[in-house]
């Protein structure tokens, strides 16, 4: 029995999860929510994490019924992410590692999402669409690397949605993307928006600029409602994501798709991806918000796989980094 605790705080969520041999024992988290119209600033986000990390840690241990001495290793997010929040969490990981005398494992955040998705859904070797506030990548596994076949060449899709929510002054509680999704359900009138696919890559900056320039005027003249704009935005950006995922699948000969990352819990995106899969006899794997959105268990799970393949990180290498590519990590735990 191997038990790994994982600490995640690369963006506006602080989470601690405990995994034992593929079982999630606990996975509490807190989210830093800013007022409508505002994003989260690294400094303030770090303060939020610092204020809550110990209570979340205690909650994780209590809920799992685990004693620190039961833990075999401590996994934490090395990157990518915002520097100040990453550092705040890494400090806690290093401290408990020395207090409890347990090894550390530095985990790539994106790999955490992929491995958690594989664990929860049972997907064997999927083409992965990883979509969140900071990331948009289409990934497939090949020869000991998660290789990036397609990605955004500018904004992440979640960032595009978040920033549009700010234009409309939608609430950030529980997340701007969730509120766009709810609004979009009431949308009827489709506004054609720029559609930008380059091979397996996508670009969202043009769509955002287009809406930034026109949204308020379209609303004022009552040509479109807020719901119509949310609907049109979702339909356009998700169609781009599904199309490029399909391109990657056709290119790799893959018959499985896994959606992960915060935007991945959007039901409309899952529905569209599901239809695409149906049309080509493929299978879709998706998870709900508890595992799509950043959480501690995903870092614990990636850490668990690394630990079992013999990897730990010496204290001197437990620095964090804002830039850390998915394809920089040697995948020692898969054939």
């Amino acid at each position, binding site marked *: 029995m191997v038990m790994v605790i994982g600490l995640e705080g*690369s*963006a506006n969520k602080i989470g601690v999860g405990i995994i034992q041999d593929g079982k999630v024992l606990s996975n509490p988290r807190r989210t830093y929510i800013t007022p409508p119209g505002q994003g989260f600033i690294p400094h303030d986000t770090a303060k939020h994490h610092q204020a809550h990390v110990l209570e979340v840690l205690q909650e994780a241990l209590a809920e799992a019924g685990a004693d620190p001495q039961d833990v075999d290793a401590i996994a934490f997010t090395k*990157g*990518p*992410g*915002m520097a100040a929040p990453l550092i705040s969490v890494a400090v806690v990981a290093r401290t408990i590692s020395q207090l409890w005398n347990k090894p550390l494992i530095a985990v790539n*955040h*994106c790999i955490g999402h992929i491995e958690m998705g594989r664990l929860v859904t049972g997907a064997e070797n999927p083409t992965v669409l990883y979509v*969140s*506030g*900071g*990331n948009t*990548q289409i990934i*497939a596994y*090949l*020869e000991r*690397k998660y*290789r*990036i*076949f397609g*990605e*955004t*060449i*500018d*904004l*992440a899709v*979640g960032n595009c949605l978040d920033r549009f929510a700010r234009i409309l002054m939608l609430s950030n509680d529980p997340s701007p993307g969730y509120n766009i999704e709810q609004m979009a359900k009431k949308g009827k009138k*489709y506004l*054609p928006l720029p*559609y930008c696919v*380059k*091979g*397996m*890559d996508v670009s969202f900056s043009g769509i955002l600029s287009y809406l930034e320039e026109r949204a308020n005027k379209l609303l004022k003249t009552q040509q479109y409602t807020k719901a119509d704009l949310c609907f049109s935005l979702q*339909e*356009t950006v998700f*169609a781009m994501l*599904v*199309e490029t995922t*399909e*391109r990657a699948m*056709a*290119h*790799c000969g893959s018959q499985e798709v896994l959606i992960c*990352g*915060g935007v991945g819990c959007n039901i409309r995106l899952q*529905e*569209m*991806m599901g239809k*695409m899969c*149906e*049309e*080509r006899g493929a299978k879709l794997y998706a998870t709900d918000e508890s595992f799509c959105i*950043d959480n501690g268990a995903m870092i614990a799970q990636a850490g668990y796989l690394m630990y079992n393949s013999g990897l730990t990180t010496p204290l001197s290498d437990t620095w964090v980094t*804002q*830039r*850390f*590519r*998915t*394809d920089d990590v040697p995948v020692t735990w898969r054939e």
Partner: protein
Amino acid sequence: MLNGMDRELVTQGAEGRLYATEWLGHSVIVKHRFSKQYRHPDLDIYITNERMKAEARALTRCRSYGIKTPAVYDVDFNKSEIVLEKFTDSVTIRNFIYETVKNKLTMDSPVMLNMAERIGKLLVKMHSNNIIHGDLTTSNMLLVPPYDLSDIILIDFGLSSVDERAEDKAVDLYVLERAILSTHPNTEHFVAHLLATYENTGGESARDVIKRLNEVRLRGRKKLCFG
């Protein structure tokens, strides 16, 4: 059914289904861009028509410059079908590389480097005529027997455009570079050789494209990702 003939599903690509059939005595491939149920109908019709137009134009344009592509026999916007010349026994460069590597030939062998050169020269020719492919991958390049001497046949021009700017040509090469590196391990030298050929045979404008490519590689949040 097409012209009363039976047709056989060959494969389902990313953009549509490919059928093999006969057309006025020719062996042809019918590419059917079926309506994608996941897309909003307005968006679906718009994209399907734009892609069909782009594909038919670019295929014909390429041929007029001596770049080998399937001949376009018919374009039917009502059925969203395009009838294309079929190349018997063709393989994608992707599968050719897989087979070659399986037979223990490395990506740095003369056969492979020669292939890289031929791709580089072909892209110079295409770009010097301002044709942007838009989705260059090793799946979108075909070889016919004998494979190691074959002309390279370019297919799948749905994302193509006509543009003279170095920017669009650089992004075209960037898409190809990424596709090769992610699909085929240990191809760093192969890609470098391909791009060097492009740069050295394409004159001034090719040098500008490569210069731009170096900027495209560094751009945006490509190397920065969090969330």
